């Protein structure tokens, strides 16, 4: 699933570790979400979106959701 997390992180001058720490996960999970290898759970997606003061739909791209596994 595509996301704009990387762009939001760079705009806020945040490292992956800092974002991971802020939302309660590991740097490796943030990396995996950013490159689209892992789809965050509802709770984690909410925490990430909320951290950047955005909605889940603004951060995560659901347009191809039916084609995903």
């Amino acid at each position, binding site marked *: 699933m595509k996301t704009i997390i990387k762009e939001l992180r760079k705009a806020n001058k945040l490292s992956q570790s800092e974002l*991971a*720490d802020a939302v*309660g*996960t*590991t740097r*490796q*999970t943030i990396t*995996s979400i950013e490159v689209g290898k*892992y789809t*965050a*759970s509802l709770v*984690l997606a909410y925490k990430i979106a909320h951290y950047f003061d955005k909605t889940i739909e603004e951060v995560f791209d659901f347009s191809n959701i039916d084609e995903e596994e």
Partner: protein
Amino acid sequence: MEKKLEKMRAELRARIIQSNSVFILFLIFFVVDISGKLAKYYEQQFAADFIQGFVIGIVIVVELLSLYKLVTYFAALKDDAKLKQLYYKEHDERVLAIDQIAGRNCNKYSMVILLFIAMVVSPFSFEAFIGLIGAVVVIGLTFKICRIYYSRKYTGE
């Protein structure tokens, strides 16, 4: 978050006691093994020597792992930042999802591989064949029991 960290601290204290117990237990096992008391139960000297070496190897690995865990846990209890990192690492949803998928597939593959090895071994050793079939049954039963338990736990009906 503070509640979760407090729970984590309590869990780490329990784990420290467990790791200490394992460390001592395997140390006792090591002492019994090198004293030669186990060797007399084996008819063949080769088997006795092999088992003695195997036990020594296992003990070394377990003791080193226990020590490593103890050091990690004590460090986490002293430093809140390390405690948080350990909490995130152990409760990371991606890792849990990977463990879930790996565990399910590991189960299937293990049973098939063990059955195959049992067939190959059967002409040479009936005891080994029975042991391997027993292992397949244990894996299958354990999986089924866990499945029933967790289905009941997470089903709302």
